[in-house]
């Protein structure tokens, strides 16, 4: 069709021969950042208390920012909570549409059901624009493909250690020991860097 147009008599006047080259936007991996007033900094360890007799909360909410230079690129976030008895649980996918801003808001809401009483938990968050087909209901939900991407290195990552209990001041020593043991059990199976833990 284009050839026909070029050859049409009405277009004979001008023809551009210059080879125009347009710079392709490079794909910069997303980065997960803390919000300014976070109470749960990325990489930190903290307590939640869902099982005491007076506890009324049923969810944990964590806010983060996802910085991506490719501001129009649609991203997906995935998060999961691992424990010593659930090392590859189902993950929760969340869309992060590219709407032109450099830092996108992301809120993770973890239900009490994901926390086991008196145990250590690792909350993991990954963000990418090239997960193995996030819209495919099978492959996009396979717990074993949690952090698999089509493009190497196109992955933002953050994690937190979360202890279930009443807190450092009121959790008895035997429970703290059990907590640390369950943290060790998880850490033996994760690849990322270790964190000093003292409940």
């Amino acid at each position: 069709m284009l050839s026909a147009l070029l050859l049409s008599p009405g277009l004979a006047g001008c023809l551009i021969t210059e080879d125009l080259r347009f710079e392709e936007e490079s794909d910069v991996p997303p980065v997960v950042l803390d919000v300014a007033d976070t109470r749960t900094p990325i990489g930190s360890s903290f307590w939640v208390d869902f099982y005491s007799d007076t506890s009324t909360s049923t969810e944990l909410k964590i806010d983060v920012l996802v910085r991506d230079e490719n501001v129009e690129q649609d991203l997906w976030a995935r998060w999961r909570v691992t424990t010593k008895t659930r090392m590859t649980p189902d993950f929760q996918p969340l869309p992060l549409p590219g709407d032109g801003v450099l830092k996108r808001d992301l809120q993770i809401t973890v239900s009490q059901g994901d926390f086991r009483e008196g145990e250590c938990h690792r909350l993991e968050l990954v963000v990418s624009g090239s997960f193995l087909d996030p819209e495919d209901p099978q492959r996009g939900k396979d717990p074993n493909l949690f952090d698999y991407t089509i493009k190497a290195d196109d992955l933002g990552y953050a994690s937190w250690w979360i202890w279930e209990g009443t807190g450092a001041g009121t959790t008895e020593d035997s429970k703290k020991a059990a907590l640390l043991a369950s943290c060790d059990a998880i850490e033996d199976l994760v690849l990322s860097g270790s964190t000093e833990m003292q409940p």
Partner: protein
Amino acid sequence: MTRCAWTHRWAVLWGLLAAAQGCAFESADALEDSAELQQRNACEADSDCGEGASCFEGLCVADELEAPLEVIVEVVPERGPGGSDSLPVVMGRMEIHASTVMDFELPESVQLQGQIRADGEPIAAEVSFVPLRSMPGRAPALVSATTADALQEGSGDADYSVRLLTGRDYRMVVRPSSPQYPPLSRELEAGAEPMIAIDYGEVATRRQSFRVEGAPQGRTLILRAFDPQTGEPVSSAAPLLDGQATIAFSPGVLDYELELRAEEAYDTFADAAVDCDRPARTLPTLRIPSDSFEEPLAEHIQLTLPAMPTTIRYEGSVEFCPEALGGEAAPPTDLPMTLRSSEVLLDAAAGALTGSFSANATASLDDGGQQLRFCVELIAGQYEVIVTPPQSSPCAIFAEQRLIKAPDGKASRGALLQLPAAAQLVGSVHSPEMAMVAGAVIEANALGRSEGPTLEEGDATLLRFNRSQQTTTDEEGAFRVPVDLGSYDVTIKPPEGSGFAWRLQHDVHIGARATEFMTRIDLVSPLSLRGHVRYPEPLLQETLAGALLRAYVVIQHPDGRERAIPIGKTTADEEGAFLLLLPPAVRAGW
């Protein structure tokens, strides 16, 4: 996937050729641009905006509101002075009637140091400062510190150090680790005292000793007293030795609830295979109100425990909702379960004593891969049983009250827990030009309330365990959110840079499952709140570049309770200037 605005040089050539021909046609990109424009709030003159709105700096903004909004703004600087941690500042409440200009002057922060000691020596403690001015119905942003550094490295004069907002009132709470010292609290104005020193040797704490008859042999029980209203600890904790323990009470405590909690029951380091999930404890936590003692403040108090119940096995299966089995995705192979009881079955001799118990379990696919089965050891009683499917599942959470007891004293078998179908919030988001708005975020924030929706007959769901959900609108501006039964605040966030404000539909009650709750969200001209954030001290102004501003609307409930709900956010520029776009109205219900 990388987006490139012009990925194909032929597109340019095509355009030039068309121009040379004098043809007027719209390329696919031009059509896309036009659709995108219709999804944005933009104007050149008042006539571009609908009734009740005018054009201001390229945006249609609402003029006068039909009903004023009560708004609280929170400002979060990117960082504190000298690189210290950022402190969020809750500004005063204001009533907004129209788009307006308003500046916020932030208080500076002050460093507060202090000592937590006993007879002059630092002790291990956690110190927290809770701001007294906070958002109604939202957890305050507390500031915490510990005395750990002082204990390890030697403290000099200060055992802890924090930054607080100058002139703001705080409640300071000290929680020592040692069982000898009770928690303490006091109120203070930041900056009024440069150093706050507490010495337990000089604090008038009351000590009471408790003799406990009938405590189980070979187990350690820990005693501690709690405030019956707030649930906060009001005493130190001490183990029961030879049936006796002495605890120290915080000053002024008259009314309390005594708790006896067993330490972990067995070696949790052992990973021996078990055929039934075991809780970390095998004894219930016991509570007794102080008014059941003849003299609650007596120096010595005696109480007798009933015979402790032993654990039983609770066995059964979990069934998915039919929607999960018919879908493309395979149902999960295991599901977490939580069982919580505030009323275990105690001996008739228990009197005013009540017992609580909780356990976790995992329902896993059986060997045949047909059914999810569970087994958990617990103490017989009235339980909240919760089974949590993945959030993306078409099944809702299972949360019901169950009386679990063993007829043979050993096991309760054959329980069937059926995951119900989720309800669906369904709708579409439209711009004033009737364009479908793609990429809008829809957040259903669970309110975790026991009351609210009217359930269908026979539905025994416990509403307070409902879970938050979120999604985004598709290319057609449509959305579908699966939700548990319960109450929600639903926030619709149009794409950033669209020029529209969030929409809020609060107190959305979902009482019927397997039902689609339909709505249509029409975005309207927002209310604009413009101004600057400033510090009195000009040198600090640079810390406000990029400051985050969050706006909350205050909703008054019929019973007088208030609740602040987020309705917008923005960031300040390098001069501290901001533009907050807010919805001109909020709506109750779906």
